[in-house]
């Protein structure tokens, strides 16, 4: 009993509670009861009885609505047919009760929507619902929501019970027309259109019932076209214009019965000036014609064709005569929806009934007139604007026609192609005496014709390529278009050639060049089994283009066009395995290009040579290998000449650059073999070996750098075995060198003085270092211990690559801990021991004397030098710099030792140099301040940049470094506390400033996530750091990086409460930065930060408002535009914080 009373309460609250929340709550409660069988539906109905039948209209409607809602909520609960039937009976009757109409509709809808497994409405019941709907509903007199329900109901009925509904016949059609007539609401319309569509499917046959009503139905749809959508896009309705347009389109095209009304309408609207109307008309026309079928559309073709033509003439833009943007074949035009649709439509029509359209096109007077007039112009710019537009339009039309179907293609070729050739005036007769590649009878060429030719050829080509079943291909051969092409290839070639030839004397405008080159390219890129152009012609084409490459390099456009074309041809030949053409290509292009490298006499500038070289190489692996060989020989040829002429070394540098930056990467990503890379590096070593006596090539710094780079990349790209090979070679050269024996190096303690390394050995060593840098961990490094020694000494001379090599060694060495597969003869631990505990003594330098004071006599270890005990600034700086790379190597693999190394850097930053201190104890005039040497401290601070930043030159994925995940985070969390603590201890202002510098380096390379966690602690320091960095212009980039970190914190979610806490100091700091003069990006970012800050709780930041606004209004007058734009935004967000009074 309690049950029911509860139930009654729920019902009560649903029926007359005003709060929506209560209603839904109680509704859900009831639905749950029913769903869980706690309350049988019958019981509910009985309980509701009074509400469903009362004369109080409000209560009644609510009651019925309740029942309906419940039914909706139990859609997955099985109901037996009897209940279904009675429910249907009830709700369909209520449709008559307009006060309760919503409930009734919702009920019917819910029932109709039920899935078959849970019991569905029977056909007869469906009919019954439909009938009473048609009888009682005055849809357009209802509100938006109810109307929507009505349409959903209709829609659903038509979908689920089309079979039975047919029997309703006229009534149904009438009813539907009546209910959708003059509907305005977008959501309802969406449904209405769909209803019409389904209605059409209901009576498909042309003699059927709908036939007689088609007009009436369409009269209702007509006014909606074209959809004019005035609702603000941001409005509550989510329906967009496109949705409406699309569904209206499917309604239009739903049945051929509409054809007599639709097509005329569309044609009329097509002539309207409104963009959207045009586009829609074209779309609709296309879809309708495909739906209605060729026969029905045929009679309109005559009407459609001209309007399509005109549309094209008016809306087609100026073609883009450039190889960078245009498609491979054909001519590129700026995107324009109207044009695209128009062409689609045209294609559709042609596909549908080719012969008719083609005849229209062929007989069209505009088209023919084109051939008479425009074809006559010789250069593009001579053509008047209007004519140009026509030309382009007709061009596109021919293109589409050719591309659509084989018959249409043949047809246009037959009727136009020969005519054009005649126009061109290159008689077919001289077919057997074609001129060789570069001699052209300089007769004027008719641009118009060529232009149209291109379009035709492009179309034809796409047609052929498009149908890619090989069986077809030999069929094409017989096709008219192909045979014609075949017979006209010579004149075409001559024609295109002459354009360019003509360009030799009077420099033609870009379009002409474009056309010429494009033409040649297309000619050359027809598959030979379809259109076997004569081998000689193909070769002539190549020759012609090559001649441009070689001679016309000062006509930039022409030259680039030619190169592009060459590449297209090249990749085409590769793609379609045109063996014959391939051979010609290789001999005429690839080898020629290579040849060019060796010829110094020809004028073509090297930079262009290289460009051509690389581009052509990239057309295919085979070509690439040839090119590489050529390049290799050229490089070494030049290297051997270096000492004789300077240009040689410059050449070498350029070639090497090309190799490292263009060719090598290409090979790698195109799965090429490493053979060349190996060979190349070995050869370089040979070269190095040879030039030991006169080390010319290695004298020039930039040349050496180029070689090192090439070496690294080559080695890095090889597998272990090959690397071993190279390593052997390199080591051989290094050790075979007579000036110093690696043996000596091993004699301890290290005494740099004893073998004073000459500059050229230094160079050789750095070259060797580059190999070390690039090798795999597994690659075997011979006599590694000695090498380490050698490196330490060289490192002290400030040879950075060596330091990097040392870092790489440490990074890759196997540690004793997992000595299982310990291949190398030196473990990590040993190496560390060597580096940090080998005594280095200075025999001949005056360092000796200075060291007397120190405990460990005249021999000291690397770290001592770092701390400046040698009291030789330069030495100390070199050592620090070297140490930083060593550290990096360890840091990446996450080795503990890094801690000690960082300590050393810190030491140098805070207290400058130790020994200097002890030394000058007794000399009065020296106070600590003066001892601190900025250059040393700076070096130490910047070491952190080396440690943290990702390096391009070494210790990265490319060079097989072992990189421990999250190493940056780890380092950050271990070092940052120390830094912060040191900062708080007040050292000299100098050392603090360098601490900040280090801080900045660490911060700007640490991942945000790590920083956000610590934000609270970091922000204050970060701000001081920022203001410190503003003092020296040199630091502007560091400043910017750090600023980015701050903005990261501001925008990051986790940073928030830290930010809120420090809002005031942050804002103060930023305000000081808004006019930082030396870097625009700084100012811009600062302002963006301020914008971000305006998001904070206003109570917190409001006090700063006036201050910020004052600062920002100055930024409105910044010298840079970008800053001003940001300032406007920022000013707005801050000003609008107190909704009112923005003025002034």
């Amino acid at each position, binding site marked *: 009993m309690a049950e029911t009373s509860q139930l009654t309460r729920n019902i009560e609250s649903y029926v007359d509670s005003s709060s929506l929340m209560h209603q839904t709550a109680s509704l859900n409660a009831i639905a749950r009861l029913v769903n869980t069988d706690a309350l049988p539906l019958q019981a509910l109905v009985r309980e509701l009885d009074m509400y469903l039948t009362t004369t109080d209209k409000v209560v009644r409607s609510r009651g019925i609505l309740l029942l309906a809602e419940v039914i909706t909520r139990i859609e997955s609960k099985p109901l037996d047919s009897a209940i279904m039937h009675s429910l249907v009976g009830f709700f369909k009757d209520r449709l008559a009760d307009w006060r309760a109409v919503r409930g009734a509709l919702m009920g019917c809808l819910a029932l109709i929507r039920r899935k078959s497994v849970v019991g569905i409405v029977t056909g007869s019941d469906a009919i019954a619902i439909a009938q009473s709907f048609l009888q009682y509903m005055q849809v357009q007199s209802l509100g938006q929501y109810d109307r929507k329900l009505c349409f959903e109901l209709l829609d659903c009925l038509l979908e689920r019970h089309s079979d039975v509904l047919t029997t309703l016949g006229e009534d149904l059609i009438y009813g539907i027309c009546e209910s959708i007539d003059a509907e305005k609401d977008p959501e309802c319309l969406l449904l209405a259109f769909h209803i019409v569509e389904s209605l059409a499917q209901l009576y498909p046959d042309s003699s059927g019932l709908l036939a007689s009503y088609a007009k009436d139905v369409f009269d209702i749809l007509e006014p909606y076209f074209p959809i004019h959508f005035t609702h603000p896009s*941001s409005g509550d309705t989510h329906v967009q214009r496109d949705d409406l347009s699309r569904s209206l389109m499917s309604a239009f095209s739903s049945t051929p019965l509409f054809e007599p009304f639709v097509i005329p309408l569309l044609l009329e609207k097509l002539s309207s000036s409104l963009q959207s109307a045009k586009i829609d008309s074209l779309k609709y026309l296309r879809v309708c014609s495909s739906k209605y079928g060729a026969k029905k559309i045929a009679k309109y073709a005559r009407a459609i064709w001209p309007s399509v033509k005109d549309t094209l003439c008016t809306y087609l833009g100026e073609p883009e005569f450039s190889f960078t943007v245009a498609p491979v074949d054909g001519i590129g035009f700026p995107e324009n929806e109207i044009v695209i649709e128009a062409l689609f439509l045209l294609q559709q029509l042609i596909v549908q009934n080719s012969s008719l359209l083609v005849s229209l096109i062929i007989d069209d007077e505009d088209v023919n007139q084109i051939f008479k007039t425009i074809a006559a112009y010789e250069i593009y710019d001579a053509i008047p604007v209007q004519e140009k537009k026509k030309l382009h339009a007709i061009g596109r039309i021919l293109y589409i026609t050719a591309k659509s179907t084989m018959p249409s293609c043949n047809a246009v070729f037959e009727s136009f192609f020969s005519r054009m050739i005649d126009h061109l005036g290159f008689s077919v007769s001289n077919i057997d005496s074609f001129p060789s590649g570069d001699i052209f009878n300089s007769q004027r060429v008719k641009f118009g014709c060529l232009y149209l030719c291109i379009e035709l050829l492009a179309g034809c080509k796409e047609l052929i390529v498009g149908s890619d079943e090989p069986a077809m291909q030999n069929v094409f051969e017989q096709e008219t278009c192909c045979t014609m092409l075949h017979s006209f290839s010579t004149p075409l070639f001559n024609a295109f050639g002459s354009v360019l030839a003509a360009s030799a004397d009077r420099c033609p405008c870009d379009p002409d060049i474009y056309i010429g080159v494009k033409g040649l390219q297309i000619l050359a890129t027809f598959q030979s089994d379809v259109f076997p152009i004569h081998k000689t012609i193909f070769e002539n084409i190549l020759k012609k283009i090559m001649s441009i490459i070689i001679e016309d390099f000062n006509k930039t456009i022409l030259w680039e066009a030619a190169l592009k074309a060459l590449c297209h041809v090249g990749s085409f030949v590769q793609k379609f395995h045109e063996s014959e053409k391939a051979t010609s290509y290789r001999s005429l292009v690839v080898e020629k290009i290579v040849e060019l490298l060796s010829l110094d006499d020809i004028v073509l500038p090297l930079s262009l040579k290289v460009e051509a070289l690389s581009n052509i190489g990239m057309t295919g692996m085979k070509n690439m290998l040839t090119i590489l060989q050529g390049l290799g020989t050229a490089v070494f040829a030049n290297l051997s000449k270096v000492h004789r002429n300077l240009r040689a070394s410059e050449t070498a540098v350029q070639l090497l650059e090309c190799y490292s930056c263009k060719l090598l990467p290409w090979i790698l990503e195109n799965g090429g073999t490493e053979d060349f890379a190996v060979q190349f590096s070995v050869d370089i070593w040979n070269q190095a070996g040879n030039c030991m006596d006169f080390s010319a090539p290695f004298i020039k710094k930039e040349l050496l750098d180029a070689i090192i780079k090439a070496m690294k990349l080559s080695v890095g790209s090889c597998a272990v075995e090959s690397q071993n090979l190279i390593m052997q070679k390199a080591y051989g050269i290094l050790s075979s060198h007579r000036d110093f024996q690696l043996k000596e190096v091993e004699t301890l303690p290290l005494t740099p003085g004893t073998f004073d390394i000459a500059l050229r050995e230094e160079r050789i060593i750095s070259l060797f270092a580059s190999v070390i840098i690039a090798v795999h961990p597994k690659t075997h490094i011979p006599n590694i211990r000695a090498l380490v020694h050698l490196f330490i000494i060289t490192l002290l001379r400030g040879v950075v690559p060596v330091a990097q090599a040392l870092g790489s060694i440490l990074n890759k060495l196997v540690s004793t801990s997992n000595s299982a597969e310990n291949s190398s003869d030196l473990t990590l631990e040993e190496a560390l021991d060597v580096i940090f505990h080998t005594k280095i003594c200075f025999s001949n330098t005056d360092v000796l004397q200075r060291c007397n004071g120190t405990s460990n006599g005249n021999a000291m270890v690397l770290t001592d030098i770092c701390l400046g005990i040698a009291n030789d600034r330069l030495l100390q700086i070199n050592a620090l710099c070297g140490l930083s790379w060593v550290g990096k190597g360890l840091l990446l693999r996450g080795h503990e030792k890094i801690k000690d190394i960082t300590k050393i850097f810190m030491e140098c930053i805070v207290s400058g140099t130790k020994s200097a201190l002890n030394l000058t104890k007794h000399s009065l005039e020296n106070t600590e301040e003066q001892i601190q040497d900025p250059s040393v401290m700076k070096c130490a601070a910047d070491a952190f940049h080396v440690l943290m930043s990702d390096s391009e030159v070494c210790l990265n994925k490319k060079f097989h470094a072992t990189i421990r995940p999250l190493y940056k985070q780890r380092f950050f969390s271990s070092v940052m506390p120390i830094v912060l603590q040191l900062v708080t201890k007040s050292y000299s202002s100098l050392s603090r400033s360098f601490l900040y510098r280090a801080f900045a380096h660490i911060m700007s390379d640490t991942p945000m996530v790590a920083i956000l966690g610590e934000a609270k602690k970091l922000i204050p320091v970060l701000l001081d750091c920022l203001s410190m960095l503003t003092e020296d212009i040199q630091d502007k980039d560091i400043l910017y990086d750090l600023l980015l970190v701050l903005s990261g914190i501001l925008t990051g979610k986790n940073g928030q409460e830290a930010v809120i806490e420090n809002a005031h100091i942050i804002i103060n700091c930023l305000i000081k930065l808004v006019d930082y*003069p030396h870097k625009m990006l700084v100012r811009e970012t600062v302002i963006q930060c301020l914008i971000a800050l305006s998001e904070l709780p206003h109570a917190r930041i409001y006090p700063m408002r006036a201050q910020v606004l004052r600062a920002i209004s100055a930024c409105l007058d910044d010298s840079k535009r970008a800053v*001003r734009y940001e300032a*406007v935004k920022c*000013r*707005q967000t801050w000003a609008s914080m107190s909704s009112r009074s923005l003025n*002034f």
Partner: protein
Amino acid sequence: MVSGLINANPVIYERKERRARTTPSAPHDEYAVEPIDQQEIFDHIRDIKDPEHPYSLEELKVITEEAVEVDDQRNYVRVTFTPTVEHCSMATIIGLCLRVKLMRSLPLRYKVDIRVAPGSHATEAAVNKQLNDKERVAAALENPNLLDMVDECLAPSYD
């Protein structure tokens, strides 16, 4: 609300797509000055929404880039706008929006004149006089109803 419009269905024009700046006149020179120019000012006002349509002033051709005259040396800007219909009583509101947006976007040194295009409005002189009476404008901006209206129109021009 649609019924209340003074100009129920205006002609809408293509908005010309934002001309991407040929990146800072001197990208590398940090100190080179980029003077405030026509396009910059147009960018400030193009997206202001018409008080009674969901379209921007640009889309309605109420303002065009050519209608902005600027002289950065002499700190002077003049914007000439063309109300959609001759008797558009919203002309003053539109003008007010333009003035406010520029007031909030330009350096203080600037003097701004706003006027309706000659012959484009029935009470041309009156409108111009009102828009350039700073006392009237100041008073207007203290009127909550007006300010709300203006802010609503300006909103889209800030993002």
